[in-house]
């Protein structure tokens, strides 16, 4: 290599010959790309597929009885059966609808109050103590109360989801607004941005990363809440299906319900990742190594 020759050159003229050779290392570890590179999405599938394989193996070896743990094949069959009856689709749709409506309310309310609280001192004084106190109440603990208030229709479920989502969005967006670099706000001000301009061009875009973290949490929370809410008090939805399956003694359907949640969680995560990728393109190194 040419670099090695250059490094040795001074020694040849004798001047540095006596000096012990320094140990040279490569500044970055050697690249270990051998064979065909596996695409990212495929790498991400490896672990879930392995779990699936072990699960199937354990079941077909008879470690558990089918009642204790249904095998993946049994779960797929249960899915087919429910699909044929139309139960799968209708219950999934209803759960999705509840989550979507709850999210819509929660995100909107969470955003509005976090902006009010993040931007205005009176807003902070009015809103922040209330939200901070309220969010330490376990949301699902409110369920009995919420049933008394709203009855057993859609309202209590949507209310609980909206509440959980509001908190997740508020906490993260509020602290992100407060964390926006003062130096940028100052710069914006010297370049003639008014209050509205500062909010639109500096503060809101600057708090977007925090908002997206909140959104990710909100999605997780809303699924948690809907499962429990539907199990206790519902005539439809995936949670209801799981609960009913318990009385029918159908572990395969219970596992099916759990799998559906897992897949929905994955999809939600994927959507937020996509959002982050396009909205936060300005952050270098965001994609990771």
């Amino acid at each position: 290599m040419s670099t090695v020759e250059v490094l040795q050159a001074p020694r040849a003229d004798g001047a540095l010959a006596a000096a012990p050779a320094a140990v040279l290392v490569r500044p970055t570890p050697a690249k270990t790309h051998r064979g065909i590179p596996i695409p990212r999405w495929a790498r991400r599938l490896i672990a879930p597929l392995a779990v699936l394989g072990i699960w199937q193996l354990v079941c077909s070896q008879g470690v558990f009885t089918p009642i204790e743990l249904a095998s993946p094949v049994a779960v797929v069959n249960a899915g087919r059966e429910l699909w044929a009856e139309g139960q799968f689709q209708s219950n999934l749709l209803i759960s999705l609808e509840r989550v979507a409506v709850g999210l819509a309310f929660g995100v909107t309310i969470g955003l509005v109050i976090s902006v009010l609280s993040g931007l205005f001192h009176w807003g902070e004084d009015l809103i922040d103590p209330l939200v901070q106190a309220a969010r330490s109440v376990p949301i699902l603990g409110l369920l009995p109360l919420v049933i008394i208030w709203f009855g057993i229709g859609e309202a209590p479920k949507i209310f609980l989801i909206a509440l959980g989502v509001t908190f997740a969005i508020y906490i993260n967006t509020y602290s992100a607004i407060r964390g926006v670099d003062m130096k940028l706000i100052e710069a914006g001000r010297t370049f003639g941005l008014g209050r509205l301009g500062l909010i639109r061009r500096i503060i809101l875009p600057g708090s977007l990363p925090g908002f997206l973290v909140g959104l990710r949490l909100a999605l997780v929370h809303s699924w948690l809440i809907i499962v429990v809410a539907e199990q206790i008090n519902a005539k439809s939805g995936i949670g209801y299906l799981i609960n009913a399956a318990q009385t029918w003694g159908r572990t395969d359907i219970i596992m099916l319900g759990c799998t559906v949640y897992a897949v929905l969680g994955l999809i939600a995560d994927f959507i937020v990742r996509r959002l982050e990728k396009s909205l936060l393109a300005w952050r270098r190194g965001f994609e990771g190594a």
Partner: protein
Amino acid sequence: MALTLDRNEAGAPGGVSVDARDIRRAFDGRVVLDQLSLTIGEGEFVALLGRSGSGKSTLLRILGGLDDGYQGDVLVPKQRAVVFQEARLVPWLRVLPNVTLGLSGGSRGALKGRGLAALDEVGLTKQASAWPVTLSGGEAQRVALARALVREPQLVLLDEPFGALDALTRIRMHALLQDLCARHRPAVLLVTHDVDEAVLLADRTLVLVDGRITLDLPIPLEHPRRRGDPGFDELRSRLLAELGVEEH
């Protein structure tokens, strides 16, 4: 008040761009600027020298309207632009919208045209749609300069804008700044650590020591100036001596 007879908010008399009297600024009881007075004429290029921590940025922030915790009376033009010690580009805006940030008056297209013209002046037209994080330090500083000058300010405040640049880029930036100043004729206050830079560029150089301006030295050399010109070294030595640096 007697003071207001010959002063007003729109512009002080005799083509004065900055008229600051008896500025005092203390942080937690520690006095940083002490009864400091300063005037800068229209189109005048003033350099401000001082050791690290002597209060240069503090003074600049006061003149830029970024600090209202001072005592004293300060008059500055309405159209001001600041180039900060760091470029302070807005990371989520591409280069061009960073340059035109906060500009008003004119259609979108017209503003875009002005922004592009300013970028052209600093030689960065190609980077117009790049994200700030992808710029080198010198490029970011040039964008900051374009952002300041696109506003055609009456007063430009520069806080060690070339401190982080290599010698070559710095020379190019000096030429650029002089060129832009010759064309737009703003009043300039350039904060710097670099005595040579002050002597090369300024019409007048101030030295800030212990919260006061202890030396106000006109630099009567012809442009273009070069290190080693007659008079250059003498001015340089005086400034260094004022800063407490012994020359060998």
